[in-house]
């Protein structure tokens, strides 16, 4: 997988994960272009499209589009499956996830994604294992109120 983008129906980017090294300018260009292309498509249209020399696999969940770019030899269906699995993971973690969960806890969304995919490849296919890893890591994280215990002056 080359990259994954999450964006809203209004065209606001909610999450981006790049598995290929690209400069910011190029990233922005791709994002803009893809957002327009995908948003212009009608609901009944196919989830796969050829774009540049890549294949784009996208799926809309409520107001949020999940969009992945894969290489030509990659399997579209497994990509769709990856998207769905990621949504399932978010759903489990946040408890019926909504767009706002991802906006406000965007770092969590990244952590989950990083436990699920690594370098653009699925690293763990078991939902249970992914969530276990996240929970374990969260436990390590100091509670938020720690901020307040820190002497400021």
């Amino acid at each position: 997988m080359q990259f994954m983008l999450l964006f809203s129906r209004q065209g606001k980017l909610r999450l981006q994960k790049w598995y290929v090294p690209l400069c910011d300018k190029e990233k922005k260009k791709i994002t803009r272009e893809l957002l327009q292309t995908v948003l212009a498509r009608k609901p009944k249209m196919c989830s796969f499209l050829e774009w540049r020399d890549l294949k784009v696999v996208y799926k809309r969940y409520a107001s949020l589009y999940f969009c992945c770019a894969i290489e030509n030899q990659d399997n579209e269906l497994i990509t769709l499956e990856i998207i769905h699995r990621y949504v399932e993971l978010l759903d489990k973690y946040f408890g019926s996830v909504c767009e706002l969960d991802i906006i406000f806890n965007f770092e969590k969304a990244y952590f989950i994604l990083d436990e699920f995919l690594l370098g653009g490849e699925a690293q763990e296919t078991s939902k249970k294992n992914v969530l276990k890893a996240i929970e374990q890591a969260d436990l390590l994280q100091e509670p938020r109120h720690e901020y307040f215990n820190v002497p400021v002056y």
Partner: protein
Amino acid sequence: MALKIVKGSIDRMFDKNLQDLVRGIRNHKEDEAKYISTCIDEIKQELKQDNIAVKANAVCKLTYLQMLGYDVSWAAFNIVEVMSSSKFTYKRIGYLAASQCFHESTDVIMLTTNQIRKDLSSPNQYDTGVALTGLSCFVTPDLARDLANDIMTLMSHTKPYIRKKAVLIMYKVFLKYPESLRPAFPRLKEKLEDPDPGVQSAAVNVICELARRNPKNYLSLAPLFFKLMTSSTNNWVLIKIIKLVSCFCVVKYLGLLAMSKILKTHPKSVQSHKDLILQCLDDKDESIRLRALDLLYGMVSKKNLMEIVKKLMLHVDKAEGTTYRDELLTKIIDICSQSNYQYITNFEWYISILVELTRLEGTRHGHLIASQMLDVAIRVKAIRIFAVAQMATLLDNAHLLTGNMQRNGICEVLYAAAWICGEFSEHLENPMQTLEAMLRPKVATLPGHIQAVYVQNAAKLFSTVLKSQEGSTEGTAAQETSQLMIDRLPLFVQSANLEVQERASCILQLVKYIQKLQQKEVEVAEEVSALFAGELNPVAPKAQKKVPVPEGLDLDAWINEPPSESESEDEQPKAIFAKEEPKHSRSRHTEVDEKELARRREARKQEQANNPFYIKASPSSQKVYQESPGVEHIPVVQIDLTVPLKVPGLPMSDQYLKLEEERRQKERADKKKKEKKKRKEKRSGRGRRHDSGPESEEDITPAHMVDIVTEEMPEMCLTLNHKVCDIQGNLQDGSQVVVSVIFENKCDSLLKSMEFNVLDSLNSKLQRPEGSGPHDGFTVPFQLPPGVSNEARLVFTVQSIVMPQKMKGTLTFIVKNEDSSIHEKLDFKLHFTCTSYLITTPCYSDAFAKLLESGDLKCSSVRLEEVNMPFHHLLARICFHHHFSVVERIDSCASMYSRSIQGHHVCLLVKTSGQTVSIDAKCDEPTLLGNVLDEIKQTFSQC
């Protein structure tokens, strides 16, 4: 209270965390840019503080802003600071920010090397995990080089959580630093069999990605992947593996393999992929090509044979390397000759293919082509003219075949060519030319067994040439021909090959004698041709078994002394052809008595009749040959026109397809004309659509309808004889009648799937097997080969026996010919006479008298006129046909008795005077009696 104050100040100091920022942005929809720029200023302030928590918070916010498209590269160093925090909370945020914001050209990355190495070796697996995750996003060639070893070590970490991450990131490392692949690969391969499924799937992912770039290097892993493919239950992994295996071309092979299995049960479904399979012949992998060839063998039909062979011939031309080409050659011949040339519709075409194949240089399969040529020329009479012409050309151009006289296999073809030209020389256009070609000095360089055939057949040709030359006016021409023989044959007499030498010297002497006769102006042609008269018939492979070994003949005993070992093997003719010689020996010359001959002939005829593939000679020519072996009766081989070159049935192959297409076009045109007329008549017919596109199935009138009529099938190909063979019963339950039906096949085809069915009447019913409905038929449990009869027993239940019964029925069956099978129907009637319900029962005269006296019996009588037979014959006839027994006979008067299966008594008093016979009868059932008398009357009216 104090806490509140502190908290308030903290709020002020910490200004905003991420949530606040997000909320703020959402609340400032109108002046978002302005709001964000103040936020960035705040973040800059926060980053200046020493407190790591504050810094982390700021970095977190920056990461969000980065996503919104703001440049945050200025904070790269701060991100590194947060990454190196010892606290997981901040480290996590630091790495996240790094993975989002860093790219290869970010210069601070090189400062991170040591920090990352430290994190990788952290005792906390989540520290390691976070570092690996981050690294996967921003790994540079430098980082890859420096950290490759550390990551490789992590691939054997105790925690699967770390192992799988390490395995996956290795792929990124390989991409950035390819030198690491070689040392890391063995460990990566190990991971394919890791006990943890996550690690396993990670390894599969990495290897699949690697293999996709360069499949060949990973071919050695194919068995391992195959094992995984069959054992793994993880679909995610399976999809990847299948993708990978397809890179190995194995899938193609497996597909072809599977197809060959499917072919056996569902040939149609495979045949539709013919083009795909033909494409596989172009594959660079030989094993795939061979598989495809195997498949083609199974999927040819009459329809596609020519097309497939044409494609194969193209491949023969292209094929590099003789092994594969030879394989193609054998396959072509296999395909064509399978099941007795079942799929060949045009033998001219096949001969041309064989001739084309002879142009291959250096093939080992010359003898295969040769035996095919012989086989076809001998068995397909209609093709002989064409075959002989082709073979003559071959002989003429023999120097092209043998090339620079290398002993290549293709010269075996000349064996067949010489034999065919000699044996069927009467078809030659220019026998003289062929004779000369066969006696060229160069022939002496051919292998011995071929030379031998040349010499023998030169003699046959010689006889043909003589015949034509003597018939013509020039007498000298014949003498010149003899001279040619005498000039050329000595070359062969000198041959080192014994067989050649023997034949040549024998024939040379013969020709010399002929020449002497010719000089005395004696016509010799007819006598010479008598030497070679007689037709050679193909012999079935198993025919030898049918010939009994004569008494006193020990086949194992040596006829001559065993050959001395000094004889070199080279001198012996090749077994394949030498063996065939004795079979072709002319039976006419052997001393077998007439009886034995007749018996063998009969046996052979039987054999031929049973062999649907044997192409029969016209009977006349054979008879003539058998009866008077005079010279004028040399069996000129007749071209049997009933054996068409194109076997009837569907029209086939290119030219036939073309013909068919033309025919259809014409039909279409005719139809259009008609429709135009119609249109003129019916102006309103605009709504109707006239065919502009391809016509529908129904529009094509079948071309082969006529052919079905010409199928070699007599109208009555089956006879049914039925006979009531067993009856039993009583009045209560009705009676059971067992009928034995004899099925006799009188045609030349196999009859199978016979189903016998009758229309039940109220009175009589066929007893059907359990579970079948009242209209189901009875499946005859056997098939009928040609000329065979067999018997089936059917059981009927009959309620009343006083009336004769006629039942209508049909027999459906399949007539299986060599090339088609037809469904046929035979209607018949089963006739149950009342007589058949009578059982011969002996009766004593006193009991008989009592019976007549009882008065229960009804009377009836019948008179038969003009019966010309002795009285005892008459009685015997009644006894035999109508199951009566004689009670008493006095002169020309007799009393007879019989009883029905339901216990009716039937008594007859038969009297005769002159030619008139009167029968008085008594029975307790008047209807039965009437019918029995009618039947008796019927019997006598027939004689």
